[in-house]
């Protein structure tokens, strides 16, 4: 009900202000006709000068260039950061194991203690807990 009252009040105000709104709109329309004619003459002159009309302005092109450069810089910074991170990680690992980073990679690829584990006797089979025959 309150919402409907608000809409009613709005309608009342709009109705009272309608002549002003219409006047502003018509004035803008007249201005726009003038603007259109001006733009038409301008673009026609540009066309005969050999320039093609585009909604883009030189500032737009400049802005796009700046943004592209920014993007490139960001990517480069990202790459640098990731390479720095990787190298620091390798250094940390080397410090931790007291070996060079290459040997650590080899060590990680084929660790000896894994072979020892796999060569051990097979694990015992797990008991089947769902076996009904087992006595309690």
């Amino acid at each position, binding site marked *: 009900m309150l919402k409907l009252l608000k809409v009613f009040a709005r309608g*009342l105000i709009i109705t009272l202000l309608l002549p002003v709104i219409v006047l502003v*709109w018509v004035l803008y329309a007249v201005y726009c006709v003038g603007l259109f004619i001006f*733009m038409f003459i301008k673009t026609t002159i540009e066309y005969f000068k050999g320039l093609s009309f585009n909604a883009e302005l030189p500032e737009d092109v400049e802005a796009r260039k700046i943004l592209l450069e920014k993007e490139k810089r960001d990517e480069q910074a990202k790459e640098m950061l990731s390479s720095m991170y990787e190298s620091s990680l390798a250094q940390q690992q080397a410090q931790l194991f007291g070996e060079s980073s290459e040997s650590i990679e080899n060590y990680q690829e084929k660790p000896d203690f894994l072979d020892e584990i796999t060569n051990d006797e097979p694990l015992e089979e797990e008991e089947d807990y769902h076996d009904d025959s087992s006595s309690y």
Partner: protein
Amino acid sequence: MMTLAVINLSDNAKKALFILFLGIILLFVFVGYVSLAVQGAMKKQGSKADGMLQNVVRAELFSNEKDFMKFARKKNARVFYVQARIPFLIMLGATIAYILFCLFSGWWGYNPFGRERGFASLFYKFGEWPRESFFGIKLISGWPKVLEKPQFKVEAIFSYFFVPALLVGAGWFLICTQAFISRTLRIRKIAASIYRKKLTPEEPTQSTPTEPVE
């Protein structure tokens, strides 16, 4: 001594007054909803300004409001020109066709909106509205008489193409003008939000969640 005037209304008068009152309320409510719809449409049209100024703002190309507004106005005019080309061409085409029609037919005083050889021949022609006095005010009390029925006239065939084309073109152009106004308003808002610094902190809106007090 004050005298009170007692107005005795008949049942019909009461009904008429109630209908009149209800009609006025409904009219204002309708106007209110139409204005809400127009506001929504204008917001949507204005949001195009965000798209057209996005790169320039992100690249931080302008350091002051004046340069930004100058660029935004230029850009807005270009977008308007691109949008208004088709309706303008429709209206221009219709006007050229009208001049050529007058030239070939020799009807230099031809009114394409008229009833004789114009677009109005497709509509009903009514007589005067019957009125009756209601508390000193003359109100419409019935339907008017039909004087002429709509009829298709061969000599008015040009106006059947000319008038709709002109109306479509003009309506479309007015919508483009409305979009131009919406973008202008939006540009002002964007410029104010970017370049005008406020010393007072902004009040939190209702949608932002409030943090619990410890």
